[in-house]
């Protein structure tokens, strides 16, 4: 019953609101099969409601979007389910273009076109680009526009064996963020630019410039901050002849991420820089120890 996600379960006695809560919970648990069945039931009820009802319409939008999301992610992915997800998203956009679910539905249609969901599936960058472009054009000020801009640019960057295409993608995203510096995706976009310039086009100067922009607005993924600090310091010292930037980031590895495992190497690197550039008077911070409490202290009794 649940395994198929089909609607032969007995939902008698459960209100739409209860089913919606249950379906949303299942989605949060990544139980896509269960979520699919529940959203399908809510959608069926909404479609059977006679007359115009704002509640029914709202439920239909929610259920259709939830059902599409579940279908898109059910495992193992199948051509039938992926097609159903695409159809549901498209139906939602067509019937409720002003709904709050429309931009994400369009973006997800782009993802379905771009990602290889199953063995027979093929990446269609042109189709994906059209969907991302539509999100950008229709909702340029919305938070989702930042994500759409990144995805749009990446459809060009993915053509890595065509330098002109990569350049087009980079130019697009750089000009977009220049116009939308307050986007919630600003940090991700700057980091994206830094990574593409460093690893794909191999332009270390531009890479570090963009990484530092991302740092200025705050890297959003704490677990990679030590690696990014190290990268900035290393490239600055060894490829850009910028010992001041290098020293600053090595110092931050020690003071801000002492448990990253790189603090000691940062100390060594600072020692090398200090010797090569005595005029800079580079300081080498100490590494914070783990247990600062005197272990001889007896354990505190219960108050």
């Amino acid at each position, binding site marked *: 019953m649940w395994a198929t996600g089909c609607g032969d379960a007995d939902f008698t006695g459960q209100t739409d609101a209860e089913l919606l809560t249950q379906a949303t919970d299942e989605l949060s648990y990544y139980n896509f099969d269960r979520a699919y069945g529940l959203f399908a039931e809510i959608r069926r009820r909404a479609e059977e409601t006679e007359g115009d009802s704002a509640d029914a319409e709202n439920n239909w939008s929610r259920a259709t979007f939830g059902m599409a999301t579940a279908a898109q992610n059910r495992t193992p992915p199948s051509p039938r389910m992926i097609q159903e997800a695409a159809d549901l998203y498209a139906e939602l956009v067509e019937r409720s273009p002003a709904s709050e679910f429309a931009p994400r539905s369009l973006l997800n249609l782009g993802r379905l076109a771009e990602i290889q969901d199953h063995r027979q599936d093929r990446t269609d960058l042109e189709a994906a680009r059209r969907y991302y472009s539509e999100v950008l054009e229709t909702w340029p000020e919305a938070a989702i526009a930042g994500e759409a801009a990144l995805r749009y640019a990446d459809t060009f960057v993915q053509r890595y064996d065509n330098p002109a295409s990569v350049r087009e993608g980079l130019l697009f995203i750089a000009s977009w963020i220049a116009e939308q510096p307050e986007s919630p995706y600003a940090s991700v976009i700057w980091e994206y630019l830094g990574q593409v310039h460093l690893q794909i086009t191999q332009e270390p100067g531009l890479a570090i410039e963009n990484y530092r922009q991302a740092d200025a607005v705050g890297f959003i993924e704490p677990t990679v901050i030590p690696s990014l600090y190290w990268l900035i310091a290393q490239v600055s010292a060894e490829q850009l002849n910028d010992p001041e930037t290098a020293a600053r980031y090595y110092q931050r590895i020690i003071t801000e991420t002492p448990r*990253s495992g790189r603090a000691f190497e940062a100390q060594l690197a600072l020692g090398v820089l200090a010797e090569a550039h005595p005029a800079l008077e580079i300081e080498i911070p100490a590494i914070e120890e783990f247990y600062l409490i005197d*272990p*001889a202290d007896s354990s505190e009794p219960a108050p």
Partner: protein
Amino acid sequence: MKPRYFLNANGIGLVLVLGAYVVSVLTVLSHPSEPKGKDDTDGRRIVRMMHWQLEPGYREALQRVIDEYNALPHVQEANIEIQQLDVTERVYSQILNVHTVSGTAPDLCQQQSRSKTVAGAGIAQYFESVGQAGEKPNPYNAPPYLSAERAASLANRSWRETFVDGMQAGWNGELQDYFSVPTSSLGGTKIYYNQTLMAEAKALMRRAWAASERPAWFEALLLKPATGETETGYVPDTPALGEWLEGDSPPETLGQMLMVCGAIWEIGRLRDDNLLVPISGSTYSDVVFAKRYLVPFTSQYSESVNLNQDRLVSGAETWTGWKAGAWSFDDPAMTAYFDCISAICRQFPPGFLGLDREQARRRFVSGHAGMLATGLFDAKSIFDACEGVVVGSEEDTPTSAASGQEVTVVEGVERRGYRFSVGVMDFPIPGPGERWSSYAKYPASAANANGEGRFMVYQRSPNKAWALDFLKFLTSLRINEQFNRETNWLPIIAGAAPAPQITAFAPDPYGLAPDLRLAPDGGNALSMRTLYTGQFKNYIAGDISFEEFKQRIRGAAEDPRSGVDRVHFEAWRTDLDRIRNAESAIAVQAALALLQDEPEAGEGLRRVVRRSVLKHNGILNRVYWQQQFPDEPFPSY
């Protein structure tokens, strides 16, 4: 004719088996299949906590915490009772898998990475996120549960921020959320040593050092310039060596440790003790030494092989780097590494690959080995077995293992069941001028050691709130300190003091990043990992020479079907799978925001979008290939 007795040995066995079967069936049938969480006697709600930590002292320490929690007024009022379920590690993951899927798992389950149900995004299907709870303060870090003075140090800190590792051990990168709560820290693996044997070995070496004609075994330990292809001995004959031999300190360098090993072999010969070995090695400890020394010998390669420039060098990156010529088994550093590991493994018992961790521990505590490499989780059992118990202490009970044993006065303290004192030291690196010192200058750091004893809240538990509440209690400053001092583990809460005897295990931040080294046996090296691991064992066991080892590895690595090309190809395929997994996380986070009328583009969503977009739909592996091998097309299978 002899009468035939039914109750012969076979008959008794059959009766016992049948009896056990009947008892098992009746036990199963007598258990009601109603939802767990309700006691069938007095209506109490039972919150069960399942773990596999059967080390001596752990269950007792946990029980004391449980008893204290169960006695709290608000817990009593709610008729809640925490109970622990201990399960052997051998079957833990099967039990966890079966019960999570069938909906009957305990309310709290220890996380084990081998379990399929907690792998990757699967964990969200069965266990609750603790991310949101982690952002709020832990109520047990405030009065009346903690003195006002200590509570002040934790004021305004979220529960997550009170952890030494920031709760990183519970972080799931794929889902960008926290799913488990660590309760201890294990710090780094260390070398335990027998202080009596160590002193005896040093005394023997002192006499040999001072002798007018030094014995051959001692001469063999002194570093000699290379006459053939390799050097012999470990430590140069300098005044510094004499100074160390004169003192009481344990080995401070790798050369000194190997000299002690040589002296212990000599002690065994003098005592005619065939069981005595320098290092109680096993199939577990060869890996410990191999991984530990891989860092100082190969971290120099990390910048050139870490293609995606993240925080670890993977198996696939290692082998792609090999193909690209970034490193070779013929490099002096690699030759030195293999020579070093071979020298260490020669100090293990013969046939060590057939010995397991427990056998190695027993050999050490019985006094038949000078050293043992293992983690903090073995500390209590080793200290108790070797040093006995202090007479009159809480542990000196009629039921303790030392009960009835002889009393020895050690440094003015009466100890029952004392065998020898145990010291703990780090894995030493070669000292100046010693063998391999040109290649291994700094040790591996343990700074990024994460928490252990991680517990998850079962999603279908009817007692989720209480299960989470107990975890907060267990990881409050005072309780976590008390619990870990009793288990002899390191506390996970910042500001908690570890037991004095285990401070040596505190993660040492001084050293090289432990994951930035070559990883020929890294997880995604696939067939190369299997081959390397097998041939490495053959090499360290002395079954094949280094030349044979290199030849076999090279042959396999160059195989177009299963070698390095295949490893790189499969890394690309794995990346595609990860991209799709990230897509699920994006879809769920975005859908939840919309369905729950919350603002879109929250931090969690932006993080998974970041992960996804920086993978560029899997092209990076192709880009790296093109950059490394511009004339070779990307492999396809």
